[in-house]
């Protein structure tokens, strides 16, 4: 008993630290469990009400309905233009098979960014729309410039978006001009498409869109343009640095594309 007392007296700071770190690790490792996600959703949802109130004052000075309508039209036109651009390339390539690919129209849910996690490595946005408005996990988020990210989690009133500037999000993309596929990642500084064989022709300014092979996104959503090319040490592959269309700092209004996401795919992404 005396020994335990002595140990406690001598090392109590370390014992408390280890105890607290163990609790943190247990919570950290059980993050995907339903109960933990529920706690997180309820608590952040409650807190975001306060955030929404601060945004309310900014909203007073803007004519919302008209602006929202214009932004919606703009976003729909952006998708339309991109679809037409894609279509003309297909026509050139496949003259005989005109309608070989089904181009779906996706309804849009307007939303406002009420919170931005500003970080070098992992950026998240919180939107003021939730499951009550039709938002669901896995829905792509766009604005009138291009792709913003993907809904990671949704409560009744809010949803959390994993943006392109998040190192844990990896997207299948392609170069629109020549259909060259690759994986888009965020390295903390730039959006990059890694390991493109050097023999493939890639020009600065080529448009990057979501790939047909993407299990997370519908095809042909505009992402950005090729800003730079960097050769790997081996000299066999090059990395493409992408300039995104969307401005992740300035943009405040977004739209959710209503598509149903496969639950199993989403589970794997979260893992």
């Amino acid at each position, binding site marked *: 008993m005396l020994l335990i007392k002595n140990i406690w007296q001598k090392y109590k700071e370390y014992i408390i630290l280890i105890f607290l770190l163990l609790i943190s690790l247990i919570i*950290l490792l059980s993050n995907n469990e339903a109960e933990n996600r529920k706690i997180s959703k309820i*608590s*952040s949802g409650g807190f975001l009400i306060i955030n929404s109130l601060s945004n309310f004052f900014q909203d007073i000075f803007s004519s919302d309905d008209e602006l929202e309508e214009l932004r919606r039209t703009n976003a729909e036109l952006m998708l339309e233009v991109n679809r037409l651009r894609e279509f003309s390339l297909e026509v050139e390539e496949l003259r005989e098979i005109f309608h070989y690919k089904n181009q779906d129209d996706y309804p849009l849910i307007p939303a406002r960014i009420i919170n931005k996690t500003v970080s070098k490595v992992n950026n998240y946005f919180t939107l003021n729309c939730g499951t009550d408005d039709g938002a669901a996990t896995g829905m792509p988020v766009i604005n009138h410039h291009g792709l913003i990210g993907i809904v990671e989690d949704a409560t009744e009133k809010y949803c959390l978006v994993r943006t392109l*500037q998040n190192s844990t999000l990896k997207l299948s993309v392609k170069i629109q001009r020549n259909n060259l596929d690759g994986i888009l990642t965020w390295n903390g500084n730039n959006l990059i498409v890694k390991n493109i064989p050097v023999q493939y022709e890639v020009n600065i300014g080529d448009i990057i869109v979501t790939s047909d092979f993407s299990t997370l996104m519908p095809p042909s959503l505009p992402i950005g343009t090729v800003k730079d090319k960097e050769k790997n040490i081996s000299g066999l592959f090059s990395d493409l640095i992408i300039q995104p269309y969307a401005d992740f700092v300035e943009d405040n209004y977004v739209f959710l594309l209503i598509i149903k996401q496969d639950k199993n795919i989403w589970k794997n992404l979260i893992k």
Partner: protein
Amino acid sequence: MSLKHYLPLIIFIPLILIQLNIIPLISFAYITPDLIVILLVYFTLVYGQIYGTVLGFVLGFLVDISTGGILGAGMFTKSITGFIAGYFYNENKIHFNTSTLLFVFIVFITSTLDAFLFAMITSQMAVSIAFLFFETGLLSGFYTAAFSLPVILLRKNKFIYE
């Protein structure tokens, strides 16, 4: 329950609102100061290491639930931050530690560590450790340290509770 137990929690509420709503507006290349670390370090230097470790755990939990991020990441890093800040605690030098440039230095060390550990946990090692340390940890540490300067001035003029 004395003032020392609930005062940091009361200060936390306006501070986290500023952290989430105003601080992003002054971010520089995605680097932001962490006001919660300044709060944590200050109270650790006033009340000691064990207090700091536990306070770090509690503040980390509150940060996790208020940002809707990964639950446990803030708890883990802030507990360590409070523990490390506790090494600078000296009951005979509380005023000196919190009203001189030593406070800024302690904030720099601890916030660098906090930002580095947090980025490492949340990035799931998808980004290189050197990058996380230099670009996320150190830069965030500098920025947070700069934001801790007003604390010294307020402490010198005895505007802040001890």
